């Protein structure tokens, strides 16, 4: 690995860290501009002003905002995410209990959706303007605009209510064998995949077509290169960057999608934890969850950028 590319990669990472810092500042600012504060909330409305003041001092709320921000930031980095007000438990404990469930859901969804989406994208790019492409176009165009709860509702109606194949709610703790696993995850994964596949397929198609329109593809065709080889051997290596980007952006959509899906199927993941935290105004928990999601988003996008940099021979060699 030579110098310029290393510098490029490091630069990309550094700018990611900077972005994350700005994001943390924004999140902290929003959650700290509250008219009331956490002490009042913890003690309820019947607390005396002295009690509130004492707790404020104890929680460090009487310190200047900037100092509190730095303390919070240091806490985040060192794993001390504060105390959940509504559950009287450390935020880290609560999140640790939910994180594996969310990761499994995200992992299964990714494993199912990425291959299908890439295949669909490649097929429609190869058959551009043909019947398959047009049908897929209308289908994906509609799917990206559909709210998750519509997909979820229809899925429940069909598979749980009418056919009775699947349970309407996900009880993760009752998984005992692979059959249970499939039944429980089928609907949440299906719901997430619908929108996800549609998006990724569209972006893959767009990225490929962008390349397929370039003169070097025409040149390949005039050399007698067949359509499959043109797409896989000529266009695909040049679309890797944009496609990685498309996958990252779509997967980051998962972050928003799981919020609805976990709630509708009562799935015990991080997102439903956060929704409860918002309803209870449990700010420490909201902050921590938001930072986790934003970091996940940034990691995905940076990973895609690194793919793009590494797949470009202008930078690689």
């Amino acid at each position, binding site marked *: 690995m030579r110098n310029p590319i290393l510098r490029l990669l490091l630069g990309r990472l550094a700018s990611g860290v900077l*972005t994350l810092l*700005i*994001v943390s500042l*924004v*999140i902290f600012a*929003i*959650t700290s*501009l*509250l008219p009331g504060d956490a002490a009042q909330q913890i003690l309820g409305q019947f607390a005396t002003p002295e009690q509130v003041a004492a707790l404020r001092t104890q929680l460090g709320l009487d310190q200047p905002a900037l100092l509190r921000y730095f303390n919070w930031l240091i806490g985040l980095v060192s794993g001390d995410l504060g105390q959940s007000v509504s559950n009287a438990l450390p935020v880290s404990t609560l999140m640790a209990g939910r994180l594996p469930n969310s990761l499994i859901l995200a992992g299964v969804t990714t494993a199912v959706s990425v291959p299908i989406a890439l295949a669909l994208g490649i097929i429609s790019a190869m058959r551009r*303007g043909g019947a398959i492409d*047009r049908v897929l176009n*209308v289908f994906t*165009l*509609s799917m*990206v*605009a*559909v*709210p998750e*709860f*519509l997909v979820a*509702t*229809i899925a*429940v*109606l069909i598979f*749980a*209510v*009418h056919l009775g194949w699947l349970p*309407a709610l996900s009880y993760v703790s009752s998984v005992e064998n692979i059959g249970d696993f499939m039944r429980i995850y089928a609907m949440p994964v299906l719901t997430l995949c619908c929108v996800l596949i549609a*998006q990724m397929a*569209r*972006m893959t198609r*767009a990225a490929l*077509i*962008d390349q397929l329109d370039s003169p070097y593809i025409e040149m390949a065709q005039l050399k007698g290169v067949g359509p499959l080889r043109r797409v896989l051997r000529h266009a695909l290596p040049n679309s890797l960057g*944009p496609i990685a980007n498309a996958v990252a*952006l*779509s997967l*980051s*959509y998962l*972050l*928003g999608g799981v919020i*609805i899906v976990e*709630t*509708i199927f009562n799935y015990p993941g991080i997102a439903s934890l*956060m*929704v409860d*935290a*918002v309803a209870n*105004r*449990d*700010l420490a928990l*909201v*902050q921590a969850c*938001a930072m986790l*999601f*934003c970091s996940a*988003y*940034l990691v995905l*996008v940076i990973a895609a*950028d690194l793919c793009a940099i590494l797949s470009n021979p202008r930078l690689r060699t």
Partner: protein
Amino acid sequence: MSQANSPRAAGSQLPVASPSRRNRAPRHAMRWIGASLFGFWILVAIFGPMLAPHPVGALVGDDMFAGASAAFPLGTDYLGRDMLSRILTGARYTVGLALIAALLASSIGASLGILAALAPKWLDETVSRLNDALISIPSKMLALVMVSAFGASIPLLIITAVLSYAPGAFRISRSLAANLTTLEYVQVARTRGEGRLYIAWAELLPNMIHPVLADMGMRFVFIVLLLSGMSFLGLGVQPPIADLGSLVRENIGGLSEGALAVIAPAVAIGTLTIGANLLIDSLSASRGQQGD
């Protein structure tokens, strides 16, 4: 960082379609389907409340989650209220809030984007950097944080939607404007001694208005989805006001019996967003065709 501000922006990045003739018929069909669906919901948003057969909150039916009948074409909800009336009234909030927010987000984002493209380099870079950071907060996440801090009032929901989607509009219009400023007619205007505002208004804006409008349409769709999602979580528009997302939430108890009360509002949102998406897509595709 990445070309699209949100993964859902994928729909707006359509490649120019081939000008072959057989593609025209389906595109026209798509445009008409899109325009009718979208137009239908705009009309409902305007006239719906006047057409509602029953008052929104009236407990008119004897049954909860009744199916379709002559008296209640869309059945009744979990309290026995007329679903048709509730949807006719709720659509106004869904469509209206999203329209206001999309208009604000796009006009704020686009104006700042054009000005950033014309601003000195350091200012442009600082603003774009901050904008990149804002974009990297997923919209639902920002909405949850905002609601947890300030509660869910209608002005706050609009501010949240604008905060979520103006950065994307900024990025797109900034890059459109930056491309245009390298063109020779803009350079000629600069060497003629024209000011920044004239260049923004007369030289740039007319040549980027179509993609900016298409982008605003996409933002409208995203905002409908965002606000309905928040309502569905109970963190959006608060009772007694109910938008389409709230209607799904209220009646989710009827899901296990397949109640019309939960399907109807969900389908309503779907037809609105799909309609808007089909319309925007067919319009921008046919414009791309004229271009070449």
